[in-house]
């Protein structure tokens, strides 16, 4: 993206007003690391949103609220019981990119490699949008389409929310890339809530070899209510992912992408089950 102008507002109201006035030409600009992948638009103006006081992580009742301009490095460094986003952010390359990339930037414009949306999807997190007033949208609904297309002029993501993860809720995350510094070939995330020996709730999502982060509801439906037995995972995954549009990249065939997807999804389900049982990985 070639910008023709930039603004550096100091308050949320100023930033929103600028974006509203600019309309289609205005772009919220956080870390700025994604704009090399965005096509040019005449008259594009960058509105820097990193000085609005939206950076920081707070513990809430049962979970966390993460400000939109919190960097991925902040996510890696934060430590608290039930915090899992460090496991996701640490796999987003590189440390230089993590130092400036923000949570809001990672979730507002989706790419095949976007990792944080997967965690928010399976943990049923929330996305807080300000159009003057803050409203929290369920991640399950927020990520059903390209989020940017739903924003009105001047709307900004101000935070995300997510639960603290502890048994009987367990989380699993796995990413495959050619080198640690490369985009994901395939990423999977799972959350399992146990009710005794039963899988009370299963949430599963994948990205990388799919065009955008997606929940895999067919697999979830096949597993929910059944015994907490990892030997059921392979069959449910195999039956549930065949109809998806798997796309091989970087030398992978589509068929290999589907196979890799299956392996990773079984792995993250197993991780989530272990964690839900309170067993160390």
């Amino acid at each position, binding site marked *: 993206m070639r*910008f023709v102008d*930039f603004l550096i507002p100091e308050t949320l109201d100023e930033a929103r007003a600028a974006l509203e006035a600019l309309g289609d030409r205005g772009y919220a600009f956080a870390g700025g690391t994604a704009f090399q992948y965005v096509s040019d638009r005449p008259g594009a103006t*960058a509105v*820097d949103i990193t000085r609005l006081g939206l950076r920081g992580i707070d513990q809430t009742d049962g979970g966390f609220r993460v400000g939109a301009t919190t960097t991925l*490095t902040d996510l890696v460094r934060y430590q608290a019981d039930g915090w899992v986003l460090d496991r996701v952010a640490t796999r987003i390359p590189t*440390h*230089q990119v993590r*130092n*400036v990339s923000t949570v809001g930037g990672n979730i507002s414009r989706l790419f095949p490699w976007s990792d944080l949306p997967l965690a928010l999807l399976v943990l049923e997190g929330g996305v807080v949008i300000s159009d003057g007033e803050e409203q929290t949208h369920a991640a399950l609904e927020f990520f059903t389409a390209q989020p940017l297309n739903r924003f009105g002029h001047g709307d900004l993501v101000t935070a995300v929310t997510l639960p603290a993860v502890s048994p009987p809720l367990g989380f699993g995350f796995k990413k495959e890339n050619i080198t640690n510094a490369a985009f994901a070939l395939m990423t999977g995330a799972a959350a399992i809530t146990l009710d005794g020996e039963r899988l009370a709730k299963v949430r599963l999502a994948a990205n990388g070899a799919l065009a955008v982060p997606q929940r895999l509801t067919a697999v979830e439906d096949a597993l929910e209510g059944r015994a907490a037995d990892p030997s059921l995972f392979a069959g449910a995954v195999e039956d549930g992912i065949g109809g998806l549009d798997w796309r091989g990249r970087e030398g992978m065939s589509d068929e290999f992408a589907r196979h890799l997807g299956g392996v990773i999804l079984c792995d993250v389900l197993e991780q989530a089950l272990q964690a839900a049982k309170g067993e160390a990985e």
Partner: protein
Amino acid sequence: MSVEKAIRIQLNGESREFNVTAGESLLALLRRSGLTGTKRGCEDGACGSCTVIMDGAAVNACITFAFQAHEREVWTIESIGEYDDPSPLQKAMVEEAGVQCGFCIPGIVMSVKALLDEIPNPTHEQILENLDGNYCRCTGYEKIEDALHRTIAETSGEEPQWTR
């Protein structure tokens, strides 16, 4: 038509004012200001040869827009040592043969400096994670690790947490 605006950067310890356009990268600004030690490699945030330190954190100057540095502190390789008076890391890089063609080295030095400023005696895992952001096409990294090991021993005053 691109608008030019003034920004102020605390650059290598000196307050400097620059006129920049919105599309200008921090890398382009540094290089047109004579600070050519910061190298232009991939220009898409992958190779790390353009690494500088902004507000204490290593960043890729190629995908950082110049205006992002407004009212921030930026340190480049030129601030680290002199030809006749290299920093311990620069000296170790040369003496341990961590430098071949040299193109990646300014970025590696800045990236490692940011790490050691924060964690004077990092684990081997932290070192490898740091080097993930810097490609070296020549050395195979072994000699660079030798240089890092020696630097950490010299500058932290402790035995490094890993062995060579």
